[in-house]
């Protein structure tokens, strides 16, 4: 089976002019998502994950931001499309679910009606038919007694059920790409796993591509087959899950990995990454991570490392040599492994 490219982002830049200066929320980002992928985007909050995807969906106000680059969706550049053409794609071919299911549904409309509305705005079918489809969708995402729950208002749903309803709404038109922006962050741990399972199931059943945004590398390691690590509006490392988790190249990725609580590493110390994310207005010279990087050396505060394959088999943006990286990472892991054994 040949892979079909769904989304190809090329050198995307999203800069917001503000009173304090130009906020470079996304600054030269390129990645590709194929059908069948669960493409994980990881990074601390503020690294530009949401802006990237909202821009792809045409939800970043073009008057409030300078947007350059290309967002090719099934071959068409979304950044060149007009508002109405974009609207026809949104919810139809490309759908998105969000972090906080508590605030994402309109509190004054019935859950079912909100899904019916999503169906009818792209398909001119009789309302009865749309309602029937909504029952089916609610049932498919695991909401019991869909006919009854159809008439509920969002506040009568639990957090997990609301996220299920959001997924049902997103899948109403069988889109090609589902963007899930931190879909489990606001939920209980047990519910998190169920929602991730549901997204995986939906992906396989509908044969779509999924972008899974999270600040939790643990979530990505469970479900993603490709991973992109973002820092300050850029990708610092990208590859398959095995590449990034088995052979991590960037000190920022190392930091993220060390902050995952491992069940099998009980007792080992969780190391938070020191320092705060940089200002997106005055980004540091050279590598934007260098002020927080314990391994910085000569060129780091002058040369901005581009993201490319530096000998590890997958691209990263760190000046250290591949050999050096292998050594340092092994060194950093030693105490953790010891503590675990």
């Amino acid at each position, binding site marked *: 089976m040949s892979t079909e490219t769904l989304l190809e982002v090329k050198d995307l830049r999203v800069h917001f002019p503000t009173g304090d200066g130009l906020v470079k929320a996304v600054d030269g980002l390129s990645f590709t998502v194929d059908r069948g992928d669960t493409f994980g985007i990881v990074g601390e909050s503020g690294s530009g994950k949401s802006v990237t995807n909202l821009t792809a*969906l045409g*939800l970043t106000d073009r008057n409030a931001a300078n947007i350059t680059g290309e967002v090719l969706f099934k071959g068409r550049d979304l950044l060149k499309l007009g508002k109405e053409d974009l*609207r*026809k*794609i*949104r*919810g*139809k071919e490309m*759908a*998105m679910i*969000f972090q*906080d299911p508590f*605030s*994402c*549904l*309109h*509190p*004054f*409309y019935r859950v079912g009606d909100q899904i019916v*509305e*999503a169906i009818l*705005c*792209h398909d001119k079918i009789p309302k009865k038919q749309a309602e029937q489809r909504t029952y089916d969708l609610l049932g498919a995402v695991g909401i019991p007694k869909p006919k009854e729950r159809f008439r509920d*208002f969002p*506040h009568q749903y639990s957090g997990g059920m609301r996220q299920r309803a*959001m997924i049902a*709404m*997103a899948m*109403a038109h069988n889109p090609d790409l589902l963007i899930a922006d931190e879909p489990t962050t606001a939920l209980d741990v047990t519910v998190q796993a169920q929602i991730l399972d549901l997204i995986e199931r939906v992906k396989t059943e509908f044969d779509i591509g999924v972008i899974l945004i999270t600040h939790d590398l643990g979530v990505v390691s469970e479900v993603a087959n490709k991973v992109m690590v973002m820092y300050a509006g850029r990708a610092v490392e990208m590859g398959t899950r095995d590449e990034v988790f088995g052979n991590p190249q960037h000190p920022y990725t190392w930091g993220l990995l060390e902050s995952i609580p491992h069940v099998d590493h009980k007792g080992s110390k969780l190391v938070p990454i020191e320092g705060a994310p940089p200002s997106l207005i005055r980004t540091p010279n050279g590598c934007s991570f260098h002020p927080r990087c314990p391994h910085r050396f000569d060129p780091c505060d002058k040369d901005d490392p581009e993201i490319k394959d530096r000998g590890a088999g997958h691209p990263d943006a760190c000046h250290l040599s591949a050999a050096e990286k292998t050594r340092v990472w092994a060194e950093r892991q030693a105490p953790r492994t010891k503590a675990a054994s």
Partner: protein
Amino acid sequence: MTQYIVRRLLWSWVMLMLVAASVFAIFFILPGGSGKAGPGGHSSVAVMMAGKNPRPELVENIEQRLGLDQPVPVQFGRYIWRMVHGDLGYSYQSNQPVLEAILLRLPPTASLAIGASIIWLVLGVLIGIVSAIKRRSLFDRSSMVFALIFLSMPTFWLGLLAIFFFDGALDIYDVGSYVGITSDPVQWFKVMWLPWLVLALTDVAIYSRLVRSNLLEVQNEDYVRTARAKGLPEHSVIRHQLRSALTPVVTMYGLDLGILLGGAIITERIFNIPGIGAYAVHAVTSSNLPVILGTTVLAAFFVIVANLIVDIVYAFLDPRVVYK
């Protein structure tokens, strides 16, 4: 819900009693009131009604007739007892039943209040929506300036200015005598349109600013982003925003209308509209206690009823609200 409404109704009665009691107390104690603090240990009201240099027997006679010779709690108890039975007493001046007199003055007040409220609701909401959608546009900025002007203008001044301008300079309005809508609708409209505008303009300013800021706040809600993300056309997205932004406006409208139904004192006086407000002012200047009490209790009644209606309507507008 039924239980809630019953409880609210009972509370409404308590509120009405409290209002009646406070007004009763104030006008009993006040100099020139009905208490026996006037000249010669007599009630000032009775003295006034007896005319110039009255014989003490006449004053006592009047006091007896009005029941002012009874102990205060008895007077109040009688008043409440009658009120519960729909009897607000008789005007000291005309001997007309107070309730009848007030009901006679309700249509002009209601015409004024309802007409003005429709104007400010429609204009306020429309201007607010356009200002929010076309934020920072010339329209938004100029409506802001007008809002500030009208907000800072006292009603009596705005009213006099309007009369000077429309009756005097332009001569397209005549301050005339009020005619009921049932007897002559055209004349009724001719008399009412300017007082409506004068009474409405301040509220147009308030409502348009409220609608605008509510809409701007709602624009950043996650569910509005969801509406866009699912591909709704812009007018549907705006409908989602309005559904949230206008809900508090409904509440405010109900309360404002309730307050106005108790009489718009200044506007009624300026435009010579024989409503409850004008009647109340007259009663105050002539120490006509039964009328003062009656108009006050009626005003309180409207506010309390408006509150009740607004709360019940709100439960239908916001499904999250549960009354127990």
